[in-house]
Structure formats: structure tokens, C-alpha cells
């Protein structure tokens, strides 16, 4: 038992400490390392764990075993999809300066004020029970600690601790959430304070858990063993088969949707996010936090069942157990943990709700009433703040009234689940809007309002059970129609009320969204707008839909009224600089500038209000079909990406084709090498075989005649010479190839001499083959730098070929030397069969003997042209083959003429 002033004092001191933290963070400009870190982001997400977790979870576990857990498994699953769903919410919200979930849904469906207001109203109504839950939890805790009456709401008003809790929380919510207007609705101080509270929640529950398990019992084994021994308690975890069914699944789904749709979760996850990368951390750290905070829930619940058998309210076991163990300090820590959980929930939830009420309901309405003349007022920031504070007070007051009215027998968790079903109604429109282009405004409105109606009918109205009328209504249905009983709609029984309501409301909601959206003919402009949300990879540079113009001074004065003159000017100056405009001279605002102002305003008063305000001063032009098509095209970045992918694959194809060609070339070279080896083998073996054969004859027949002996020896010598020649050529080729492009010898060579020398050397051969050889040496200098002997070799080789391919009768060859500009041309022509164009490139390959294709095998080894080409290349020249005049082939060589100094 503790004194009331002590508990009150500690509680208020704790809240003041939190406020001091928030104040310090914001005074430092909120740019400290702490605020805006991924850790603070993750911990602020833990605002999910309200006093429902802290006190209600234990109560639920004590009664039903494990089914407190789906509420935390759901968010874990939702965050598995975080990189897809939450990231898209983040990007779109950043790009459109979204300040709440109502804003987001409103912006998706054509910046419509109506749907945002609808969402806001549902959120307020749906969350009233949830706020009532927090107030009751604090009051219950207070009652447990002070051992006063455990039933809050039954005391006369001035003595009701819940009323005081509500009043104190209202003040703190106003201090945290609506001290000033922040652009983008960032509250860095509040975030750090919430993070601190999250740490305290976790520590507090863990300390109590450790105390219960190791202080009141001898470890987990002892606790579980003793629980198993009591049949009544053991049934909590020794469940019969099929204990958990639809209700478990429903809770998982509801929790999953609530993580995305609860206004306070949207506030901390999306609106307060300063860096998208924090999400990568949070998607596993937040579920980890949930796991840790739930680790001791079941052990505490079991201990409570064992040690507090007569306890009529299991929700306060967390406080009662330390008191039982005579640890008042621990009980106080537990109380503070509960206060933290409740306070953080109430502060963030009411902040989010007040922003929604102010931006999406009150301001648009006030701005529309022209007689108020609001659009002409010069400074509206104070008005905005007071609207928000008023909204906070109203929401908390509603929560308090609901708590007093609601029967106190209902467990905390059941009240919370009611709110979960209500906010889950936003999910179809939200997710459908983000991922389905075809979702229309009418569909969303139909879905949300029908779902909400079903929720009211099956959960909210029946929750006022102590009204006699309502009790009768639950049992018999309206006007005695059994089919419409709120807990067994259309005769659906066997489900608990929450599962029952979740099933019907979400079924109706999704059904209406789908059917209405699909039946409705979407206007092109709506289609384009939807495309911005659904297809845009980066909505920040999505195209502008509305073709609007306005005067910049008008826009400027409008924005100044909400943001202040200095801030507006600074924002516009940096925007204008970014677009290359001169802020001093620009007068007419184009569509993008209008959008900029609308978003700037939206960051303070919400998209719906901003649209109303800006709409009053802009001129809007209808959108042409072409523009819509352009937007549809532009936003389909997927198509563009596909295009890029195709380009890449084309490049890949080209590369692989090149590789294929290279491969074919390699295969060809490989085949040539095989041919080469085969040819060399053949060429070497033939002379060797005849040498051997004739040598054997000479050895075995000593009585051979001299004439024959001489003949055989001549053959042997000839064959040996042929071998020597072949080996010499091979060595020569490899030497040339090894030496690269550097000429072996570099001296001034007189080509006329080369021509004369080579023709003289070949004259005998030509005469023997009966082929005439004409030598034509033009006048003038024809000198090159190079190797005389090698050039002679080239010409001899070409002349040899000419002899080989000239016809047996009437063969004619010509060797000419001409000057061609800076170059000297050598040509060797014959009147043979010529070389078909297809073969001209390959005749210079090694062992490429064209004789093969001509039916007869010419003599020689097929290295001559290859060697010639190498030599010419070494001289920096080129060699090729073309058709000779009057049939036959002509091999031409061009070499750079040497610059000879003029003789003085």
C-alpha cells in the first residue's frame, strides 16, 4: 500500500522528465545525433505496445493462454512485407507531404476532401474505446497500488483517478504534440521521449518478469512445473487439439493491418520518418522488441494464477505480484511502465488524430465558409494550434466518457481489439490504392463506409451492454429479427464477437471496393492520378496532372499566413534556384510551382486543406487526352525499365555473337593447325619414305648396275634436298613469326635490283615450264627500307606460284615495278585460272593450298604465301591478290618508298 500523493508525484515527475527530454531535443534544433537515428525510429514504433500490452497482455494470457501473442505476430508479418508495403507508403507520403493516413487515402483518391474527412471521423470514433482503455488501465493501476476501490468509473467524478489521468494526459499531449506547427509534422522531441518510454516499458516488464520467475519462484522449471500441477492453471498451456482457430487468425490479420492503419503507427512509421534507410533496421528490430517484451508475459500470468487465486481482475497482475512479494519499489516501477505505455499511446494517438481532425475536417470546412473570411486572415498558425488542442481535448474526453459508460467487466484486450477492427477498415482502400490502379474513389468510399457501418452494428453498439435496450437487441436482434443479431449476423455463430465483426466488416469492405471500382468507368484524369501512386517507382518526380496556373505573389502571401513570411520566402527561393528561376522576377507560376506551394501548405495543414486553399486562387485548365497519355506513359517506369533491360539483353546478344565469331575463328585456326600438322607430317614422310626405300634397295642389292645406282642416289639426294627445304621454310616462318614486326635488317634496298635478281633466279624455272616472263621496271627511283634478301625471297615465291598456276601451253607471267605516289608497287601477274574472290583472304593462311579445291595437288608445302605476307608486313607494307587483266591472278605488294635525300 502506498500513499496517493507519492504515486501521483512520481507519475507526474516522470512525465515532466519526459517532457524535459523532448524540450531539450527540440531546443537543440532536433538535429542531435539521437533524434533521427534508426534506433529512435525503431523504439518509437514500439508505441504499438500500449498499456494493452503492459497490463492487458498478462490478463489475456492468464485467462486464455497464448492468444495474447497474435497481436505481436501480426506486426512481425507486416514488417516482413515492410520493404514492399511500408517503403511505398514512405515514398509516396514524402513526395506528397502526407501528414496522416487520412491525407494519404485522400490524396490517392484525387485529393478528395470527402474521403479524408470520412477516414478521420472513423478513426476518432474507432479509437475512442482504445483511449478509454489506456485511461482505465492507469486508473486500475493506481487503485491497485493504493488499495482503493478497484473499479474506476464507479466513483464520483472529483475522486475518479481516471479523470485526473485524462486531464494530465491531455495537458501533456498538448505540450508534446501541438506546441508549434512543424512543417511535415515532424516532432523530433516527441519521438525521443517516446523512445525513452519504450525503453522503460521493456525494462520494467523484464524486471518484473525476472523478479516473478526468480524471486517468487525458483526459475522457469519450477514455475512451469507448479503450474502443470494445478489442473486449472495447466489448461492454459496444455491445450486440447484445435484450441486456436479462426479467432487466432483474425487477431493476426487485424494486428497486421493495424500496424499499417493505426493513426499513431502511421504517424511514427511514415510521418516521423526522416530517413528511408531506417526502415531496413526497423523491419527486424521492431519485431525483436515485440518478442522481448512478450517473453515474460506468460510466466507472469501463470504466477498470477498460482499466487493470486482470488484475483478478479487479471489485468493488474503486473502490479499485484510485486506487492505480494513486498517489493513496493518494483510495484512503482511496474506502475511507471504502465503509465509510460499508456501515456505514449495517448500522446501519439491524439497528436495524429488532432492533425487529422484539424487538416482534414475542421480547416477545409472553415475555409469553405466564406463569411468567416478566413482566407483573408494574415496569420493562421495560432488558429491551427488551437484547433488541434481542442481536438485532443475532445478525443480524450470522449475516451473518458466511454470508459465511464462502458461496463468495467470487459478486459482491456477486448476493448483494444474493437479499435483494431475499426482501423482495419482503412486497409482495403490504403493497400488497394497503393497497389491497384483500378481502385476508384467511389469504391473506396463505399468500402470504408460500409465496413464501418458493419463495425458499428456488430461491435460498437453491442458494447454498451448495460443499456437494457442494447442487451435485448443483442439477444433477439432488431425488432426481434433473429437473422440480424449483431453477434450472429445472418446466423453466423461459433465465432467470438471480434472475429465475427472482423469477418463481416472486412468482407463487405473489400467486396464493395472491388465491385464499385470495377463497375465504375474511371475518368482518364483519375486513371492518370492512380498511376502516379501505383506505378511510380519514385513518385517525387512523377508528372504533374493538374494544369494550373496562378500568380506567384498570391501563392506567396497564402503560404506566408501558415508558415510565416521568412520560411515561405526561403522555401520558394531554394525551389526557384533548383529550377533556374529568379525568385525576384518570376510572376506567373506554372503547374509545378503551384504543386510546390500546395505541398508546402500541405505539410502544415494537410493535403485536403491545402487543395481547398490553393484551389481558390488558381486557374485550372482541363487536361487534354495527350497529357493524360503522356502521364500514363511517363509513370510507367516499369516499361522504361523493361526497355533498358531489353537494350542490355541486345548488347549481351551482340557480345555473345562476337564471342561466337571468335570461337568459330578459333575452331578454324585449330582445324588449320591440324591440317598443318597433317601436311607437315605428309610432306616429311613422303621424302623420308622414298629415301629409306631407295637406301634399302641399294643395301640389299649390291649387284645393281652403276647406272641404276646413280639414278637411285640422285633420287635420294633430291628427296633430302626437298626435306632440307621444307624444314628450312618451317624454321624460317617460325623465326619470322617470333621476330614480330621488326625487320631483321634495315637498309636502303633498290627494288629494281631485287626485281632483276629474282627474275634472273627464276628464269631457268620459267624456261623449264615453258612459261614466258615479262619484266617491266618503270623509270625512277624505287627504294625502300628493308631486307634485300627477304624481298628477293618474296618475289621468287610469287614467281614460283605464277609458274605453278600458269597453263602448260601459252603460259604468261609478268613482273612489274611501279611508283604509286609515296608508295612503290610490285605486281606479279599470271594467266592461270585466277583465284575466286571468296578465297582471296585465305590464300595467305599457312598450308592453305588452293590446289585441293582444284582437283590436283600442287607441289610445295603451302607456306610460301604465309611467309611472304609476314615479310611484307614486317616491311610495313601490304600484300593482296586481285583479278589480272585477261584472266588469272595478280599479287600486288605495296611498300612505302624511302625518302632519299636529293643528291646535292
Amino acid at each position, binding site marked *: 500500500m502506498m500513499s496517493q500523493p507519492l504515486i501521483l508525484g512520481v507519475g507526474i515527475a516522470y512525465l515532466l522528465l519526459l517532457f524535459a527530454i523532448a524540450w531539450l531535443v527540440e531546443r537543440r534544433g532536433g538535429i542531435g545525433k539521437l533524434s533521427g537515428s534508426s534506433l529512435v525510429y525503431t523504439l518509437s514504433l514500439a508505441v504499438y505496445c500500449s498499456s494493452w500490452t503492459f497490463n492487458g497482455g498478462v490478463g489475456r494470457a492468464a485467462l486464455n*493462454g*497464448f492468444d495474447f*501473442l*497474435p497481436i505481436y*505476430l501480426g506486426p*512481425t*508479418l507486416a*514488417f*516482413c*512485407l*515492410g*520493404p*514492399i508495403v511500408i517503403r511505398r507508403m514512405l515514398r509516396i507520403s514524402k513526395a506528397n507531404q502526407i501528414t496522416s493516413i487520412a491525407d494519404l487515402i485522400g490524396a490517392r483518391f484525387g485529393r478528395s476532401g470527402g474521403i479524408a474527412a470520412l477516414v478521420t471521423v472513423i478513426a476518432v470514433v474507432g479509437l475512442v474505446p482504445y483511449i478509454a482503455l489506456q485511461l482505465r488501465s492507469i486508473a486500475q493501476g493506481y487503485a491497485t497500488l493504493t488499495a482503493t476501490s478497484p473499479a474506476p468509473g464507479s466513483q464520483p467524478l472529483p475522486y475518479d483517478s481516471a479523470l485526473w489521468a485524462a486531464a494530465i494526459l491531455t495537458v501533456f499531449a498538448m505540450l508534446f504534440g501541438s506546441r508549434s506547427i512543424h512543417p511535415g509534422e515532424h516532432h523530433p522531441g516527441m519521438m525521443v521521449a517516446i523512445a525513452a518510454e519504450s525503453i522503460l516499458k521493456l525494462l520494467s516488464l523484464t524486471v518484473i518478469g525476472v523478479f516473478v520467475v526468480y524471486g517468487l519462484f525458483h526459475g*522457469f*522449471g519450477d514455475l*512451469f*512445473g507448479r503450474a*502443470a500441477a494445478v489442473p486449472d492453471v495447466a489448461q492454459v*498451456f*496444455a*491445450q*486440447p*487439439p*484445435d*484450441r*486456436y*482457430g479462426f479467432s*487466432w*487468425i483474425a487477431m*493476426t490479420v487485424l494486428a497486421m493491418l493495424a500496424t499499417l492503419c493505426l493513426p499513431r503507427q502511421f504517424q511514427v512509421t511514415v510521418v516521423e520518418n526522416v530517413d*528511408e*534507410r531506417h526502415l*531496413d*533496421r526497423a*523491419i*527486424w528490430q521492431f*519485431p*525483436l522488441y515485440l*518478442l522481448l517484451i512478450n*517473453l515474460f508475459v*506468460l510466466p507472469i500470468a501463470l504466477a498470477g494464477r498460482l499466487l493470486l487465486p482470488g484475483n478478479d481482475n487479471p489485468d493488474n497482475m503486473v502490479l499485484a505480484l510485486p506487492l505480494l512479494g513486498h517489493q513496493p519499489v518494483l510495484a512503482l516501477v511496474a506502475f511507471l511502465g504502465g503509465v509510460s505505455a499508456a501515456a505514449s499511446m495517448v500522446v501519439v494517438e491524439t497528436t495524429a488524430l488532432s492533425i487529422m481532425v484539424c487538416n482534414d475536417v475542421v480547416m477545409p470546412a472553415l475555409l469553405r465558409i466564406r463569411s468567416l473570411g478566413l482566407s483573408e486572415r494574415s496569420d493562421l498558425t495560432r488558429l491551427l494550434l488551437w484547433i488541434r488542442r481542442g481536438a485532443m481535448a475532445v478525443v480524450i474526453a470522449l475516451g473518458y466518457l466511454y470508459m465511464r459508460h462502458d461496463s468495467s467487466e470487459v478486459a482491456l484486450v477486448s476493448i483494444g481489439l474493437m479499435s483494431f477492427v475499426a482501423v482495419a477498415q482503412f486497409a482495403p482502400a490504403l493497400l488497394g490504392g497503393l497497389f491497384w490502379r483500378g481502385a476508384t474513389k467511389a469504391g473506396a468510399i463505399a468500402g470504408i463506409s460500409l465496413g464501418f457501418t458493419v463495425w458499428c452494428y456488430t461491435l460498437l453498439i453491442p458494447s454498451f451492454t448495460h443499456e437494457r435496450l442494447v442487451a435485448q437487441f443483442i439477444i433477439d436482434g432488431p425488432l426481434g429479427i433473429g437473422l440480424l443479431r449483431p453477434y450472429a449476423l445472418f446466423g453466423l455463430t461459433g465465432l467470438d464477437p471480434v472475429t465475427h465483426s472482423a469477418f463481416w466488416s472486412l468482407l463487405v469492405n473489400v467486396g464493395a471496393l472491388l465491385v464499385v471500382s470495377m463497375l465504375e468507368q474511371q475518368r482518364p484524369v483519375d486513371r492518370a492520378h492512380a498511376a502516379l501512386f501505383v506505378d511510380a517507382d519514385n513518385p517525387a518526380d512523377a508528372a504533374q496532372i493538374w494544369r494550373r496556373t496562378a500568380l506567384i505573389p498570391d501563392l506567396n502571401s497564402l503560404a506566408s499566413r501558415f508558415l510565416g513570411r521568412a520560411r515561405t520566402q526561403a522555401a520558394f527561393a531554394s525551389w526557384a534556384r533548383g529550377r533556374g528561376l529568379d525568385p525576384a522576377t518570376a510572376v506567373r507560376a506554372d503547374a509545378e510551382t503551384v504543386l510546390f506551394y500546395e505541398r508546402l501548405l500541405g505539410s502544415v495543414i494537410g493535403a485536403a486543406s491545402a487543395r481547398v486553399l490553393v484551389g481558390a486562387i488558381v486557374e485550372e485548365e482541363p487536361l487534354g487526352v495527350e497529357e493524360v497519355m503522356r502521364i500514363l506513359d511517363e509513370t510507367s517506369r516499369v516499361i522504361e*525499365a523493361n526497355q*533498358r*533491360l531489353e537494350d542490355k539483353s541486345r548488347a549481351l546478344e551482340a557480345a555473345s555473337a562476337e564471342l561466337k565469331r571468335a570461337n568459330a575463328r578459333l575452331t578454324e585456326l585449330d582445324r588449320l593447325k591440324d591440317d598443318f600438322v597433317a601436311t607437315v607430317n605428309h610432306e616429311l614422310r613422303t621424302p623420308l619414305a622414298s629415301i629409306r626405300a631407295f637406301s634399302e634397295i641399294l643395301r640389299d642389292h649390291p649387284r645393281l648396275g652403276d647406272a641404276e645406282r646413280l639414278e637411285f642416289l640422285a633420287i635420294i639426294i633430291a628427296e633430302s634436298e626437298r626435306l632440307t627445304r621444307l624444314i628450312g621454310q618451317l624454321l624460317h616462318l617460325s623465326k619470322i613469326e617470333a621476330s614480330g614486326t621488326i625487320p631483321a635488317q634495315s637498309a636502303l634496298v633498290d627494288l629494281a635490283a631485287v626485281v632483276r635478281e629474282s627474275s634472273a633466279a627464276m628464269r631457268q624455272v620459267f624456261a623449264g615450264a615453258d612459261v614466258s616472263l615479262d619484266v617491266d621496271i618503270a623509270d625512277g627511283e624505287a627504294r625502300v627500307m628493308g631486307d634485300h634478301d627477304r624481298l628477293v625471297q618474296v618475289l621468287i615465291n610469287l614467281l614460283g606460284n605464277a609458274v605453278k598456276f600458269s597453263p602448260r601451253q601459252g603460259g604468261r607471267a609478268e613482273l612489274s615495278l611501279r611508283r604509286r605516289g609515296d608508295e612503290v608497287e610490285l605486281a606479279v601477274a599470271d594467266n592461270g585460272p585466277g583465284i575466286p574472290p571468296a578465297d582471296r583472304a585465305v590464300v595467305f593462311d599457312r598450308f592453305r593450298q588452293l590446289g585441293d579445291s582444284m582437283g590436283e595437288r600442287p607441289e610445295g608445302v603451302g607456306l610460301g604465301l604465309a611467309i611472304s605476307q609476314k615479310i611484307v608486313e614486317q616491311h610495313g607494307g601490304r600484300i593482296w591478290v586481285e583479278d589480272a587483266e585477261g584472266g588469272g591472278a595478280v599479287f600486288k605488294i605495296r611498300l612505302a618508298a624511302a625518302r632519299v635525300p636529293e643528291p646535292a
Partner: protein
Amino acid sequence: MLRRTARRDRFIGLFVIGAILFNPPILNLFGGTVFGWPTLFVYLFGAWALIILAVALLSEKSSRPGPGEKAP
């Protein structure tokens, strides 16, 4: 492009695995006690921890920009 799609698919895969593990009827397979601990307690927290671990590994691995990829 491919990399991002693969990452996305893995997160969806984890979601599906989690949804199956965390819900009945798989859940109802675990009853009674193991070494004096409630089996369902051990199972649920174990499976939960595993899913978190997998998400952590996937997220931390892929949030580092790979070669040739711009930091977000």
C-alpha cells in the same frame, strides 16, 4: 533490376512462411510440455526468433549497396 525483384520475392517468401508457422492449424500441433516447459511457448518464441533472424539477415545483407549499385 533482377536483384531487387529477388529481394522482394524473398521477403514475400518469409511472410508466407511466417503466416503458416504462426497460425493454426500448424500451431495446434504443439501441446503439452517438453522438459517441463510448455511446448507451444518454446515453439512460438523459437519460430518467431527464427523469422526475425531471417528478416535481419536478408535486410542487413541487401541494404548494403552492392558493387555497381548506387547507395539509396
